[in-house]
């Protein structure tokens, strides 16, 4: 097997027989085609949000299984404790964060603006469904790119995003791991201004979910070059999670890495080690309180007993 070198890492392709190599070469494009066909042609009785949630859960379980078949790094291997911790965040995403997004996030705000200004964009639903889905993905990913880039460049936002960068290994569930404030912010978008068909939103959501899961998965794929040029991959995203400061400021897009190429932040490489500083993981409690650290420090300083200034001066 030929090996190349990327970012000082010896890059080895998928190990195993021809069937395994075939599957792990074409899996990502094949799922994309399957998603398009399913959400385009499924009858209305099936094409609904509950089915999309079910597909998402089954898909992530399948990827966790694939991590055992074509593992990327042994030191990223999922343990029981890591699984329990990750599932807590996944559970939060499907309950509290989703609820907050619907009632206090972009959906609620956009609905109010549209209602106030009597905005109607029924024409959006007349576009072919594949282009509707593409538009939803592009609009969301463009906003997500700048929100993510902002998080790496403005401390108040960084405080919400840094907990996600404290993960020390990647797996298919890690996209959900982070502070709830960050997960709420990164999910904001303006796609709701357009009255796209719900089916198109489900297709876009399915594609975004799949690519988001690949980028965090501990799976060694033989990713086709054309795919890596267009879409984000685990190679790109592992580099983004590198403890190296400069490397972590690359590859911000969630789905389309070509957005990074347009703005000059793409880097086609990968990292073996992921994490921040000395690569210590954060527990759930630390993840929750992390954005409030400056406030906590400030409050502690206020409450700390002060030495009389005169006594200090005399010493």
């Amino acid at each position: 097997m030929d090996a190349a070198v990327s970012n000082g890492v010896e890059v080895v392709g998928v190990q195993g027989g021809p069937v395994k190599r075939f599957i792990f070469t074409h899996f990502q494009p094949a799922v994309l085609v399957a998603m398009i066909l399913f959400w385009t042609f499924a009858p209305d009785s099936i094409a609904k949000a509950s089915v999309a949630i079910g597909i998402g859960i089954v898909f992530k379980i399948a990827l966790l299984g694939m991590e055992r078949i074509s593992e990327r790094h042994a030191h990223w291997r999922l343990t029981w404790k890591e699984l329990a911790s990750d599932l807590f965040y996944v559970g939060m995403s499907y309950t509290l964060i989703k609820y907050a997004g619907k009632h206090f996030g972009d959906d609620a705000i956009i609905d109010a603006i549209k209602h106030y200004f009597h905005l109607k964009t029924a024409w959006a639903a007349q576009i072919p469904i594949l282009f509707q889905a593409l538009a939803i993905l592009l609009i969301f990913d463009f906003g997500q790119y700048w929100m993510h880039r902002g998080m790496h460049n403005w401390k108040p936002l960084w405080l919400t995003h840094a907990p996600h960068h404290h993960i020390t290994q990647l797996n298919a569930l890690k996209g959900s791991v982070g502070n709830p404030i960050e997960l709420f912010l990164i999910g904001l978008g303006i796609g709701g201004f357009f009255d796209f068909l719900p089916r198109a939103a489900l297709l876009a959501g399915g594609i975004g979910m799949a690519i988001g899961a690949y980028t965090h998965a501990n799976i060694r794929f033989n990713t086709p070059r054309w795919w890596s040029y267009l879409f984000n991959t685990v190679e790109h995203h592992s580099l983004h999670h590198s403890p190296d400061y400069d490397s972590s400021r690359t590859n911000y897009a969630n789905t389309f890495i070509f957005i990074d190429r347009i703005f000059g932040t793409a880097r086609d490489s990968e990292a073996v080690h992921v994490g921040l500083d000395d690569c210590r993981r954060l527990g759930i409690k630390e993840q929750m309180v992390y954005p409030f650290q400056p406030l906590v420090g400030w409050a502690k300083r206020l409450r700390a007993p002060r030495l009389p200034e005169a006594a200090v001066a005399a010493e």
Partner: protein
Amino acid sequence: MSWLRAIDWIWHVRGSVPLSDPYQNAFEALEPVFEERGTTLEHGAGTLTFHKDNPDSQDKLASFERGTLQIVETDTGSALRYDLTSHPLLWCFVAPAPFAALAYAAQPMRIPGYVFAGIFAALYIAGRFIEQRNAHKLFRDRLAGTSTDSAEAVPA
């Protein structure tokens, strides 16, 4: 408190491993197990206590933040007895309750709330079994000198 003792099996893992060689220094044989970041050891009279502060993910005993190991005499000879404390097991045991409460209190979260309550109940049962088996196997193999499952080497 006897009532606490009656329920602490939820977050405690206990067991014993027979020592084939009564003159073996069991604690010395187990020392490599505790050569992990964030682990500190306390030696007592016939006991070894470990504490783990934010252990790395691949630490074989990462689920346990404290444990006491003791050499005891039993009817069949010497044995290593262990008592390990796991907060992750405790939280996993408790986790179904808030998710079920969400499902009950907020109707839009009914299905995901109950689904995750079920997932954490299943995860607890699996973890209670897996973590006990892994810890027992780790101690047994180390004492037998057959361990091949030292912590996964992380490339430099």
